[in-house]
């Protein structure tokens, strides 16, 4: 019983939040890693792309709510996601046409592309703040919990409660569907295969008649979808604030690099590694250890390794360890 109680506490405070956060990071890192694989630069504007897609979704959500449309227990935002993706894709394709293509044709060094993406980051950031402002926006509606603490306690008779929020459930389910669809696309369809070929060897792919502009366009479309979905899920789970999304850049990049830049599978693994260590290191373990350890050894303090404000430090330290000891990441990524 003690053990079960401890496990439930662990699941409630560490496992479930980390799985949800990890799924959000994985989706974000997939976008970063795709851009890196196909377009060959680290996109600093990715956090703000996520913010823009989420903003479009929020605006449509409000409009839908105003019209009285709802999904019942599920958040209305799910209905609005396709519109958000469309808005985000339009902006990204416009950016590519006006900004990135010029440099791609010239084949500039990747670091110049990174600086260009810094400019794009400023612009996206400005647009998002201009339209929706800098404040926190909460747009989740519908049922709050799949299972609440009290229900769980009466159901199982345990002392510890377990709560699963709807948004956490939706996050995981959506992430699984999206990732499955993405891998099916990359491995089974003609376009997906041509994308992988282009990523592996650009010149060879061009020689075999693959249209680079098409590959790039499809990549941006997928990135728009991934960024919007990741952003909306994060916003539903926590809340939407443009600056937070900008800051997400760091854990997302850490996830992509830890997994191996350019490797989709790595991005997912990296997302979970980062999420679990962030949550694990900043969680106060007193409760769980109190259940698991004999009474005489039960800890006095909170057993919190680091205060939550240092969560960036966690993703960063992992990033550094991986870079120093395994520079290509857990799954062999590429280096340009």
């Amino acid at each position, binding site marked *: 019983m003690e053990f079960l109680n401890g496990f439930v506490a662990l699941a409630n405070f560490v496992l479930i939040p980390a799985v949800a956060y990890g799924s959000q990071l994985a989706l974000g890192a997939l976008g970063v890693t795709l851009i890196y694989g196909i377009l060959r630069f680290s996109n*600093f504007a990715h956090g703000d792309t996520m913010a823009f897609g989420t903003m479009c979704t929020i605006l449509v959500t409000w409009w839908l709510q105003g019209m009285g449309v709802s999904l019942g227990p599920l958040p209305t935002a799910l209905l609005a996601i396709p519109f958000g993706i469309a808005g985000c894709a339009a902006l990204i394709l416009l950016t590519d046409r006006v900004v990135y293509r010029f440099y791609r044709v010239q084949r500039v060094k990747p670091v110049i592309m*990174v600086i260009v993406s*810094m400019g794009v980051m400023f*612009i996206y*950031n400005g647009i998002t703040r201009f339209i929706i402002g*800098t404040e926190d926006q909460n747009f989740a509606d519908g049922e709050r919990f799949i299972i609440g603490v009290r229900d769980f306690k009466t159901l199982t008779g345990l002392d510890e409660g377990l709560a699963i929020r709807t948004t956490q459930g939706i996050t995981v389910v959506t992430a699984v569907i999206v990732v499955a669809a993405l891998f099916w696309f990359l491995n089974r369809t003609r376009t997906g295969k041509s994308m992988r070929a282009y990523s592996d060897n650009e010149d060879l792919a061009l020689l075999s008649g693959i249209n680079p502009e098409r590959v790039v366009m499809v990549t941006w479309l997928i990135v728009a979808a991934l960024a919007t979905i990741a952003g909306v899920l994060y916003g539903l789970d926590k809340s939407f604030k443009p600056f937070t999304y900008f800051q997400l850049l760091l854990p997302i990049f850490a996830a992509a690099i830890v997994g191996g830049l350019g490797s989709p599978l790595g991005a997912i693994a990296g997302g979970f590694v980062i999420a679990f260590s962030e949550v694990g290191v900043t969680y106060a373990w007193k409760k769980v250890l109190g259940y698991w350890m004999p009474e005489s050894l039960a800890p006095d303090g909170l057993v919190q390794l680091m205060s939550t404000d240092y969560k*960036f430090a966690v993703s*960063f330290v992992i990033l*550094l360890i991986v870079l120093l000891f395994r520079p290509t990441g857990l799954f062999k990524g590429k280096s*340009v």
Partner: protein
Amino acid sequence: MSDMLRGTVLFGIMAVLIVGTGFVQSWNSALLILNMGLVSAVMALGVNLQWGFAGLFNVGVMGFVALGGLATVLVSMPPVGAAWSAGAGRLFLALALAVAVMAAAILLWKRLRRGLRGWVVAALLVAGFFAFRAVFDPAVALIEAVDPAATGYLGGLGLPVVLAWPVGGLLAAGVAWLIGKTALGLRSDYLAIATLGIAEIIIAVIKNEDWLARGVKNVNGLPRPLPYEIDLQNDPGFVETAAGLGLDATTASTLYVKLGYGVMFTLVLVLLLVLAQLALKSPWGRMMRAIRDNETSARAMGKDVTRRHLQIFVLGSAICGIAGAMMTTLDGQLTPGTYQPLRYTFLIWVMVIVGGSGNNFGAVLGGFLIWFLWVQVEPIGQWLMYHVTYGMADGSWLKGHLLDSVQHMRLLTMGVILLLVLRFSPRGLLPER
């Protein structure tokens, strides 16, 4: 147009813009722009040293600027005696312990054979961490308990604030050395992410370690190198001189203080600019550019690329630290909550790229110009929006929204400027020769 002429004309335009602000708006705002422009120019010089000379992609500028600000507090604030006697000894013991553990870990890693060493070092680090926390936490609690509303930190050394500028540089240089040792071997975009993360960590430390500089409770009332306005206004001699110039005492005192800062900052900027120019023209500078342009061939010529990179990374970061200390001195307070990467890292990058990377004068010009625009875009935007929304009904939702959102035009403008320069004049306003 020759480079010399082009530079003179562009700097002339810049001067006209600032003087124009003085005539159109007020001399106080013109001097404010000038002072922060000088600070920005120093920061841009530091980034230009790293990026323009050596091609190092450092996006952790914010961290080094904040370290400079921290140095200002540590140098100039009076020490808090009660806090020192309460827990300082224990605190330094904890820090020494942390350093010893790290050193032992590195030593073990180098001495032991492969295979087992990973586990040994990991075990040592984990044990060391808990030992450190056991000593550190009570010390912090003791220090932060000392009059938390007013102090709750160790205070500084009580030295003249100007000393903080070189100390800020040294502090930033020390941290940069540590970072460079670990991160400089990385590829350019990995280095970018690494520095971005380090900057966030530095800010997180300053925000959370209240014993160091009060964290988000801020340190106010830093000592100033110049007299206070109110003292000037009470000084009959000063009032008389001001009246002789046809100014009232209040305006004259604010202008006097701002001018004083301007002179001090100009001295620093000129000194650093001369040094940077000498470095650029020296064999060392040529070697740096050779490394930047082709690392492999420079290595083949027998240049120690890694060490040179470390050297210039430390130097550039030190300059950013100096600028950070100057800025905090100008503000008179350290507010860790205001450090944001867009403002303190990426904006500096815009300055360097727009001004002309690899050209010191370009970086300085970029610092002034971008800072001027950063300040002035808002009033211009307001004026523009006023006219755009002129025909709309008063109190309409759109009109209110547009007028309220003007402040976000800044970021948009900066992005557009950066992209335009990159596209049509990729080497900047004053290109490298």
